[in-house]
């Protein structure tokens, strides 16, 4: 689908989509793109698995943030780990890379906002991010800084989408 939505005019097969005014720098290098995708997507896949195995425990962690109405907590507990897994997997492979990066970026922003609200209210809670079921990982500003840093690879993929999937010629 990534190759289907290419703007208004039809593009000759194999013609690069890089616009003239955006001069590719080292940041635009496909190897950098691959590293960003594997790193960011890999983290999301890796951390999603334990959460989706135990939605009850993850829902309890979500509840600890005291942001959502209790009726909404389970909904997030059930779906969020799967959104993380699917978006992460798509990003690693390079299927709809920009969409996956957008979704992951939105989730990171959401984590930053939720974590900031919890910290500003003085809540001492489990962060529920990396090893939610092992516990012991308290929510702190360091966690939010790390989330903010992870926005960088997401931005790279949004700006210069890359993929391991060869583009189909039409």
């Amino acid at each position, binding site marked *: 689908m990534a190759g289907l939505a290419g703007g208004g005019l039809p593009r000759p097969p194999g013609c690069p*989509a890089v616009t003239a005014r955006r001069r590719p720098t080292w940041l635009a290098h*496909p190897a950098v793109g691959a590293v960003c995708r594997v790193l960011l997507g890999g983290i999301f896949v890796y951390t999603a698995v334990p959460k*989706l195995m135990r*939605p009850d425990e993850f829902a*309890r962690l979500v509840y600890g943030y005291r942001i959502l109405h209790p009726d909404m907590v389970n909904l997030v507990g059930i779906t969020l780990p799967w959104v993380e897994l699917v978006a992460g997997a798509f990003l690693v492979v390079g299927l*709809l890379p920009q*969409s996956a990066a957008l979704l992951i970026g939105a989730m990171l922003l959401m984590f930053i906002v939720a974590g900031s609200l919890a910290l500003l209210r003085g809540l001492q809670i489990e962060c529920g991010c990396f090893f939610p079921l092992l516990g012991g990982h308290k929510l702190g500003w360091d966690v939010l800084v790390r989330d903010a840093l992870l926005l960088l690879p997401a931005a790279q993929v949004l700006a210069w989408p*890359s993929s391991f999937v060869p583009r189909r010629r039409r």
Partner: protein
Amino acid sequence: MAPSLAPSAAGRSTTGGVVLGALAMLVGAATLGFAVNHFSPHGIPVFPQAASTPLPLPAGLKAISPRDAQAALKTAATVFVDARAPQEYAAGHVPGALNIPPSEFEARLLDHLDAIEGARAIITYCQSVECSEAVEVGERLLESYHGRVYVLEEGWRGWQAAGYPVRQGARP
């Protein structure tokens, strides 16, 4: 670098296309989550009102909101069980609550056996939403007690935050 890894290999989508793709991914993943949750042994209710529990609890235990618990306080048939340490209990507890920490479960249970057996329902609590003592004591109560056992959703902190009655000292 192989030509297939060129920056354009993935194709640059329009903004609308990117957003649409993200939305499709979101809906697809959520659907997958609901499906797996439905069949999983660890599955939880999507909307917990029916079970009256936003906190997924072990079988047999139910959660109760501070407001409902406060209403139950007025009926003599409900017994509160404070599962925290005696010092925390003495610093402040729900009026009438029995102090039964998990570490002294058997001894304290014997002390309060009459009250427990005569109760129509028991509400356990510990410090906050994340503590596990209330759940542990609740599970052990269920082994011998046949009434309903509830866990106070927000624990002691929620009770305090709501401004409900508090009693200090070592006595219930």
